[in-house]
């Protein structure tokens, strides 16, 4: 893979001594230390400092504010999603406690099930997402809920929705299409409706 693995001795081909057109790079050497110019050194310190600050900020955001990414939750055989007892056989919104919801969602060509979710404002929602066929992905517009959906895996994220409104959740990984028909990856989306406080009474019909 590298030049060291090649063990053939170079044959003593005679030939003109190679004159060096590029000068200094080929001077014979005594050992020298890496010399770093003053302003270069200052810049390197700034670069290291910036990198450390970024990492610390990210770490604090993840640990203290819970702004995090999906992890390893569970695996599920995509061919069994319809079987009885499988939580993805009846995807939808479930209320766990007042203000706490879970959403089981299946991404498939070319829709999300469910494609409409209603929760009251201020709800904490835990999403469980898997894919039935190929890879999909979803981002809830204007939020940080962003997950890939892989066949065989369950993606999980928790989010709190503090602003009433309608948020699209759109498939963001290419997943095919039907040629000549208005259906495919670009038509795959759903809507999350965060209901204002006074309408929460009739919410959670599912």
């Amino acid at each position, binding site marked *: 893979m*590298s*030049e*060291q693995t090649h063990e053939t001795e*170079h*044959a003593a*081909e005679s*030939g*003109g001594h*190679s*004159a060096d*057109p*590029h*000068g*200094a*790079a*080929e*001077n*014979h*050497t005594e050992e*020298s230390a*890496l010399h770093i110019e003053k*302003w*270069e050194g200052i810049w*390197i310190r700034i*670069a290291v400092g910036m990198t450390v600050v970024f*990492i610390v900020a*990210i*770490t604090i955001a*993840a640990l203290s504010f819970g*702004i*995090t*990414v999906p*992890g390893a939750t569970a*695996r599920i*055989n*995509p061919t069994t999603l319809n079987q009885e007892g499988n939580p993805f056989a009846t995807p939808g919104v479930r209320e766990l406690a007042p203000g706490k919801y879970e959403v089981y969602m299946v991404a498939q*060509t070319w829709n999300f099930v469910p494609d409409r979710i209603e929760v009251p404002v201020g709800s904490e929602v835990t999403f469980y997402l898997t894919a039935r*066929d*190929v*890879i999909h*992905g979803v981002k809830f517009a204007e939020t*940080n809920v*962003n*997950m*890939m959906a*892989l*066949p*065989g895996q369950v993606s999980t994220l928790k989010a709190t929705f503090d602003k009433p409104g309608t948020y699209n959740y*759109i498939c*963001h990984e*290419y997943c*095919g*299409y039907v*040629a000549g028909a*208005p259906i*495919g*990856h*670009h*038509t795959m*989306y759903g809507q999350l409706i965060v209901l204002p406080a006074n309408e929460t009474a009739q919410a959670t019909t599912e």
Partner: protein
Amino acid sequence: MSVQALSGADVKATPQSPPLTAEHLKLVDRVAGWNILVGVLALSIGALLGVFQGLEHARVIDIYPWLQPVIKTYYQGLTLHGALNAVVWTTFFICGFFTFAFVRSLNRPLKYPKLSVIAFFVMLAGLIIAAVPMLMNNATVLYTFYPPLMADWAFYVGLTLLVVGSWIVGYSMYFTYYAWRKENPEVRAPFIALASTITMVLWQIATLGVAAEILFLILPNAFAPVFGYTAPGLDPLLSRTLFWWFGHPLVYFWLLPAYVSWYAMLPAQTNGKMFSEPLARLVFWLFLLFSTPVGFHHQYADPGIPEIWKYIHMLFTFGVGFPSLITAFTVVASLEIGARARGGKGYLRWIGRLNWGDPSYAAQNLAMILFIFGGIGGIINASYNVNMATHNTMWVPGHFHLTVGSASTLTFFGITYWLVPKLTNRKLFTPKLALAQAWTWFFGMLFFSNAYHTLGLVFSVPRRTMLGQAPYYSEQWNLQMMESVLGLAFLTISATLYFAIMLFTWILPRKLDKPIEMPVAQPLDPKPAPKWLDTWWPWLNGAIALVILSYGPMLFQLIRDAEFWSRGIRVW
């Protein structure tokens, strides 16, 4: 590995390098020229398809009904756009450029010149084999080809050959480097030769991931319908993980050839010197160390990978950002030396004295400016939880059109402005047009990428989507869509100019007045770099160790627990 043998215990037996003859250079230049020709042709098709996509996104025109039966759909065009631009153009150009520059920098003929010829034809065969299913709409899986999407087998076999061909280009360089080292045990390797060899070794390590994915997971499934056996199935997460082992160092394979030019050629094109040659070597070694153990930062949003591994890869990703931060200082300092030698004064006024009249120089300097924004965007993408705001949105194409689409591509344009005249012995047609080309690309990408970044970050608009047909298309996007079309207008002019310049430079009988030599910047400090910056084993072994540490445990687990539940599907 007998690395110690390199330290020259038997100096007396040292053979001398054979001379670099005009005959040999003729062969090298011919191979380089073929590579660049194929690369530019691929880009001409890929770029055109990009314009169609941009116009579709902005609902200016849905051109696909008129492209029948050549291009059947948006997504087929998108597959071709990604494969031709990001894989074919870059790989062929880089192999041609490196073959040309490596031999001259080392001042030694290739040990096995036929290897470079074979490499080119293997790559070309791969390209043709992969192009057939892509053009027949049988491989509309985009250039990342995530299974269970399953293309025709020829697509994967073709891509594999293309990569294997590029490996052979590397082997040709390693054998030559090794022979040279035997002949010159106590001499520092010339910078360009060393840096290009490091880049090829990095590429070799990177492509092992995608090679494993194709050989062990995809081909057994893709061949099933051909030979009529039952497909064994595959594990999508394992497949994705192997892809991203390759997918991120891929971007350094695109970027480092540009760095070779920025560090070691561009200063000479504006009367400058390499500000800190040893540090430039350190930068390349750091890329070798850190470019692969970073792949999970493309999988932050993936299930099935524990947060801790994503976090560890984030740390390495910041590690690989660091040499680019050094580069920002060192390259600019090298150019400043040139500007001051040309009479530049003041804290910033010297910038005006850079060699802006030379299109080769101007294109590359403009590429650097765009890369500042590309680099900042990259740090944002790398930032773990911040990535959740941008992952798979239009922000991402906005980002990589500044990096591979500008930092690399515009630099490669600049390189061809001296290299193609050199290879064809023809005058550039014309320097003024080439300057216009560089500036229109600069402004085009500025508008285009700004628009796409905003669409992704503010409106969560998804990438890789036939947006014009989307039911969720929003009028809120109009301003950015208009800006992107403005960028596209500039880019269309720029690309047209580029291909016209290449064509007319090549075919018009305007012989060069005086021969062109490869620009090589001299180090400011003639003291040679310390030996540890010219020694392979710590860096190479370190790189391998980091790959094992960062991927080993997680890959072991993914392979041990692999479930081949998914079957390859064609959903287009």
